[in-house]
């Protein structure tokens, strides 16, 4: 059974210095508030994992939480660069950042292998690209039946996975719908998991396209209304496209970013520009 708790308590209990942490969300339902709580609690030396690191990872990297990033596409969707990520990669500020780079197909299969209790996954991937020259975690594997050579990638099993969902019931069963990305896999692959939700409800009414994560498969659930802002929570609020655009200017400069961090993350329990 999942523990029903607060965001601050959950992060304090579950996220430790040096952990491999995945905050997943594919444009939709990104657990931004949880990422900012990790910044507030000063967690360090994280290996961040995500298929599509965006603004919240830019914030965590700029705030010095991370020493590594495992990813397949890092950008500010529809806007451009993640300047804090680029500053870390290009100028080691505020600290060097180890990159481990994959394709989406590879990352998705790595989570799926992790969720399946397998040490690796097989795919037709990376062929002809320069990724295997720079990423150690890509290997060849031969089909024992046909002799065909395919690609293997190792399972991802984060110490902690964090996702945001629309709802949970009071037993901690979690319901999410819309684009659900790789969130189920991220939670099931992890040793510990935290789900932030828009709200607790008495009953999870079945909905088209909804998936339920049973309470016994989740470590902790915390109510964090608007916890995915500036991304969106289908049925609750829209994507705040202005935030994404404004982030470009805020993040471009170290001082502007640091000022923003002081005001909007350290200065409050909700992060909005």
């Amino acid at each position: 059974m999942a523990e029903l708790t607060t965001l601050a308590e959950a992060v304090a209990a579950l996220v430790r210095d040096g952990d491999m942490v995945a905050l997943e969300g594919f444009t939709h339902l990104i657990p931004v508030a949880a990422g900012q709580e990790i910044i507030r609690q000063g967690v360090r030396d994280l290996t961040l994992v995500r298929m599509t690191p965006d603004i919240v990872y830019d914030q965590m990297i700029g705030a010095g939480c991370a020493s590594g990033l495992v990813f397949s596409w890092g950008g500010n969707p529809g806007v451009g660069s993640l300047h804090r990520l680029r500053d870390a990669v290009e100028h080691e500020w505020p600290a060097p950042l180890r990159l481990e780079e994959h394709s989406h197909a590879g990352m998705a299969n790595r989570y799926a292998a992790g969720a399946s209790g397998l040490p690796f996954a097989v795919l037709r991937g990376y062929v002809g690209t320069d990724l295997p020259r720079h990423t150690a975690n890509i290997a060849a594997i031969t089909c024992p039946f046909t002799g065909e050579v395919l690609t293997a990638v190792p399972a991802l099993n984060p110490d902690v996975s964090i996702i945001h969902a629309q709802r949970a019931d009071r037993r901690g069963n979690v319901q999410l719908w819309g684009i659900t990305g790789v969130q189920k896999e991220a939670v099931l692959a992890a040793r510990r998991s935290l789900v932030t939700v828009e709200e607790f409800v008495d009953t999870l009414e079945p909905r088209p396209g909804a998936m339920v994560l049973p309470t016994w498969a989740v470590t902790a659930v915390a109510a964090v209304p608007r916890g995915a802002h500036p991304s969106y929570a289908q049925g609750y609020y829209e994507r705040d496209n202005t935030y994404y655009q404004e982030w470009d200017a805020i993040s471009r400069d170290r001082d502007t970013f640091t000022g923003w961090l002081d005001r909007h993350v350290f200065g409050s329990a909700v992060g909005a520009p």
Partner: protein
Amino acid sequence: MTGGSVAGGSVSDWSADEMMTVAAARALVGHTACFVGIGLPSTAANLARRLHNPDLTLIYESGTIGAKPSVPPLSIGDGELAETADAVVSVPEIFNYWLQPGRIDVGFLSAAQLDRFGNINTTVVGPDYRRPKVRLPGAGGAPEIAASCGEVFVVVRHSPRTFVDRVDFVTSVGFGDGPGHREQLGLRGRGPVLVITDLGVLQPDPDRCELALTALHPGIELETVRSATGWDLAVADGLRVSEPPTAEELRVLRDLTPTQSTGDSRWAT
């Protein structure tokens, strides 16, 4: 590089970007299912669905199959994609069950760098991966789209910085080192059979696999394309001139993108 009229651009009451998008949309006539990258490809694919191919299935890597957005999405995971889709599946499923087996006939990509063999770079600019001149966003779904779709269309603005002799990093393979390379790699799809830019259209020479100019957009000089291309660009026999956008094409395109920048979403350089 920004949207709007650029090098050799608008010659009439339409912009070079509009010509490019219309040409890309026309290329989707007769196709069934298209795996769509965000930015320019998404705009073109949505235009095709409105103009001449209402049954075209748009597939986004966020897991939406058959999305019918009223405006081109800002991100590949916009809510409207899910709300209008025939099916929404998980991200592992979209790659494993839908893309990987080769059941999608067209993959539609953009590029930060593109070389003479149609290889795409969206990873790093500069010779040293660990110390890049510019760090680009990375691979996303493109490597497997380029490998597994029946064929690949690339839509990208023409410039010598983009059209390079050899990409600094092969993020998504085209014809690799040239003839026979895709076959040797065991790739199933035909690769980048069509590159549509704001200046014209490039297609691979069947023997040499090198991209050659097969069409100029109206009003564009051959020399303009050559000087925007970082290798000695071959010109195919029977070089065509693209049909200019029709009034109907322009009307629908402008309806579709009233407020949107047509900028692609790669990290700005």
